């Protein structure tokens, strides 16, 4: 796929990627997804998103070529490719912070490199394509275990690890009440993961009825529509005996709706780095001394955010791009043992050629869409 400008994408021919570094591999994509993160690019909100870029950071496929220093991966391996590009050697990678690698993104120090995610995240072409260049092939890519459904595998590149880390960063203790803003793929899977950490009560807030309905069934949790509330913060206070939630997760990020001023300044005029409505609600609805876990993505500049309340309430904020590779062993186990069932989130399978329609459907939340997966012609 080829980005042409805000809300304009299409299919174009590009030269096949080549090995440019001895640790590179070339992967023939068999499945790739569109993610809520892609919507920030699609809407033109991420600085340095160049026309002609190929998006896509959630993909699996077959290794068809390897560089001279690649030792573990072999041609013919089917691999899960984590969305982060990580060298495995820098201090940050050594600490398991694979989303914060220092040797993969020249353009910005404040974000690690991500496939197909603008030049601010490294300027790599992504996986909504037939072939992709995958740097540091021995570090990120993980061979898909025998018998694993490719639809489960493709969701292990981002959705499941991100959702799991959202819950992990919440520092959930047994019995805790957790509120999650956002019932997209990330929020839905996060609701499921909160239980694994022993949450006592899980509440999801969104405004899209079909998604609330889905998460209620999928994650066995409570789900409420904020458009039916006078004020979501008061609603949460009330339902937690006026204390606030122990942990609040922001699984919305920069495209948030629900507050006109945030929407205008954050999404229309780009005066702030996206609309910070969910982060704002999170800070105000968590209990004093509580934890706010942010996985919703915001841009690199500033946001309108109640910092004073963070201070006065003594909050802890934890946030990051998910360190996919760190979580994979445990999450593969969970999928294999039937604890987690990622593929149930996939609602749409679309030929890669129809990428423009898939973006539009996912972006506008049409046709009860939760997660679309793109299938390239070579994989059909």
């Amino acid at each position: 796929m080829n980005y042409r400008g805000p809300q304009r994408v299409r299919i174009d021919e590009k030269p096949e990627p080549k090995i440019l570094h001895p640790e590179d591999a070339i992967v023939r994509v068999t499945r790739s997804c569109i993610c809520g993160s892609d919507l920030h690019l699609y809407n033109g909100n991420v600085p340095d998103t160049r026309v002609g870029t190929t998006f896509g950071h959630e993909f699996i496929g077959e290794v068809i070529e390897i560089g001279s220093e690649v030792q573990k991966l072999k041609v013919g391996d089917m691999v899960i490719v984590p969305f982060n590009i990580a060298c495995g050697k820098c201090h940050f990678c050594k600490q398991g912070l694979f989303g914060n690698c220092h040797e993969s993104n020249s353009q910005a120090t404040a974000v690690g490199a991500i496939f197909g995610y603008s030049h601010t995240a490294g300027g790599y072409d992504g996986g909504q394509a037939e072939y992709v260049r995958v740097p540091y092939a021995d570090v990120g890519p993980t061979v898909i275990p025998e018998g694993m459904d490719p639809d489960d595998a493709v969701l292990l590149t981002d959705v499941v690890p991100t959702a799991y880390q959202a819950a992990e960063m919440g520092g959930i203790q047994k019995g805790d009440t957790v509120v999650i803003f956002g019932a997209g793929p990330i929020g839905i899977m996060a609701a499921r993961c909160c239980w694994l950490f022993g949450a006592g009560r899980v509440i999801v807030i969104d405004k899209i009825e079909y998604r609330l309905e889905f998460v209620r069934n999928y994650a066995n949790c409570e789900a409420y529509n904020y458009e039916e509330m006078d004020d979501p913060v008061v609603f949460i206070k009330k339902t937690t005996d006026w204390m606030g939630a122990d942990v609040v997760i922001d699984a919305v990020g920069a495209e948030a709706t629900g507050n006109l001023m945030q929407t205008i300044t954050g999404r229309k005029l780009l005066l702030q780095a996206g609309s910070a409505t969910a982060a704002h609600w999170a800070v105000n609805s968590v209990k004093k001394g509580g934890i706010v876990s942010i996985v919703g993505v915001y841009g690199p500049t500033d946001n309108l955010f109640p910092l004073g309340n963070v201070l006065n309430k003594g909050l802890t904020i934890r946030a990051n791009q998910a360190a996919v590779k760190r979580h994979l062993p445990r999450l593969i186990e969970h999928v294999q043992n039937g604890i987690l069932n990622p593929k149930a989130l996939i609602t749409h399978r679309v030929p890669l050629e129809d990428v423009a329609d898939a973006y539009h459907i996912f972006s506008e939340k049409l046709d009860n869409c939760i997660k679309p997966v793109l299938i390239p012609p070579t994989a059909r």
Partner: protein
Amino acid sequence: MENKTPKDYSHIKGWGIDADPKNDPTYPMKHRTDAEHEGYSWDRPTQQPIDVEVLHSIERPNVTAVFGTSVPPSGLSGMIRRFAFKHSENSYLHWLPLLMADRVNVVEGVIEDLGKGSVPNIFAEKGWKADWEHNRTGLIQKVGILALVTTAAVVLLTRKKD
């Protein structure tokens, strides 16, 4: 509401299997190494040959060992991007010009398409075909508004001529 009485979660597969009482906010998420305070000193991966223009943040001394080669800066948008990269990530003079370059780049993209003799099919690129199947009222509204705006513009323009 805190759960004062123990509840039964047996219907939830895997409840509590990853519970970690040590994971309170002061428990570090990263694995500390003994290299914490040694600065930029690790054994770097091999450098990818720098044979395309790569802009790099002035908050680091070099180009990273690997980098993306997609769409190097070019044209007017490229000039604006080069200017932006003279300023740090801490500065609006970095981010605002980049956003401006992105917009200029869209126009360059259309010119490039026209140069190749193809008019971009904006409706297809916007995925409005999907609206026909899943959001017909929305599509009709959009087209209706477009028609209204066009008619109004035509009326206004023709009036001025009189």
